């Protein structure tokens, strides 16, 4: 059941060729972004691997302070020095270097406390781990 639910969405993949690598920011971007570079961003994800590396590189291009931790270590304390958290985990399909799992979900051992109100962007199904009783959960 849960496995089938994972098949809930795709990013309209394969419709267009992959985009070019990150380009240098334009002057317009620099001007628009200047006041936001100081936003402190914490990436909390699956330790090691391609996603952590990709997020860290990407975020570091746009923000002056970027932290990286294991998602399972996310708490009010570890997020205290950041403005926004990116909560991420790996796939279980084995397409991008992470172990392929059959029959069971790769779920982080995590449940943030109710008092945790730091802004979070949860990738893919991670919101269902963070606040499973609320609205952003498996359909």
């Amino acid at each position, binding site marked *: 059941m849960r496995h089938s639910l994972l098949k809930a969405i795709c*990013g309209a993949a394969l419709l267009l060729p992959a985009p070019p690598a990150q380009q240098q920011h334009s002057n317009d971007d620099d001007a*628009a972004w200047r006041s936001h570079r100081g936003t402190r961003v914490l990436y909390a994800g699956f330790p090691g691997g391609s996603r952590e590396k990709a997020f860290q590189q990407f975020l570091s291009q746009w923000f002056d302070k970027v932290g990286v931790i294991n998602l399972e270590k996310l708490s009010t304390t570890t997020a205290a020095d950041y403005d926004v958290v990116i909560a991420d985990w790996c796939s279980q399909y084995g397409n991008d270097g992470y172990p392929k799992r059959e029959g069971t979900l790769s779920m982080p051992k995590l449940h943030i406390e109710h008092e945790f109100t730091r802004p979070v962007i949860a990738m893919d199904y991670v919101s269902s781990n963070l606040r499973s009783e609320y609205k*952003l959960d498996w359909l």
Partner: protein
Amino acid sequence: MRLDHPIFKGPLSVDVVLDADHPYMGQGTWLVYSPESGKGSDWGMVSDGHELEDSPDCERISGGINSKGPCAVAIGRQASLLQWGFYGAPDHMTESAKRAFLNAIVYMKQFDGQVPLVKKTSAGRTWLDQYIETLEGMKPEERVPKEKNDLASYLVAKFPAELTKDGVDPARLRKWYQDNEEFLTTAGLDRTMIVDQDLAALKLSNRKSEFLDWLLRAFVEDPQDAMARKLAGRYLGDHGIPDAKAATAYITENRPFLFFTDTGGYHWMVDVNAQRTARVKDATAKKDGK
């Protein structure tokens, strides 16, 4: 997809190109990411979009191609949590997706400290509309339940048995839904909804502000009004003490912040985030002597 949402507006410009050759729900599709060449796309997640926005802490930003229905939410927010339901990491995101994602980080800063208002305990009433649409799209012979767990059985079970005992007629179900939409309530923890016959008899919506006005009027006329006490107990949530004084105080003191939620259990609740903001604003104004 809400292209007028702030995450598509700035601070970075986002050039969302909708691919008209691959339409979904009457709109072109936005390519969010591409998998590695030769490898399959990993699945993401959608959340239930039916009545997602029945609480003021939530917003639907974008759907996505999925198997759960057109209302499902790929990008959505509840309080300080934003779901980005697509799996692709930045090294596989399109340029427009990267820019929208960066904008989302900036956008979310304003929700620091906001608590989620509603725990999901029931299904929004518009699910019935989707069930009827699904039946409308099936051939007459497919609408006949054959096995306990087939699709037709699942859908038919969502409606009162008397409506389908002589066969499944989507037009009849739609008329019943239209006639009773405002009087629906949850039947329990599953996705089943029932008509509140008390509301139907009064022709009184449980989710519109007229419901609160009706209660106040009824308690003024008769504090012991049995129907008013029953409905207050049923729809004022934890504060639904079937007592005229308590119910009246709850409504009048919280009126600007009250909202009705289907997904949170079919009752009225207080937007504590907005209430706290208003208190801070008031306190600040008093301090400044305004």
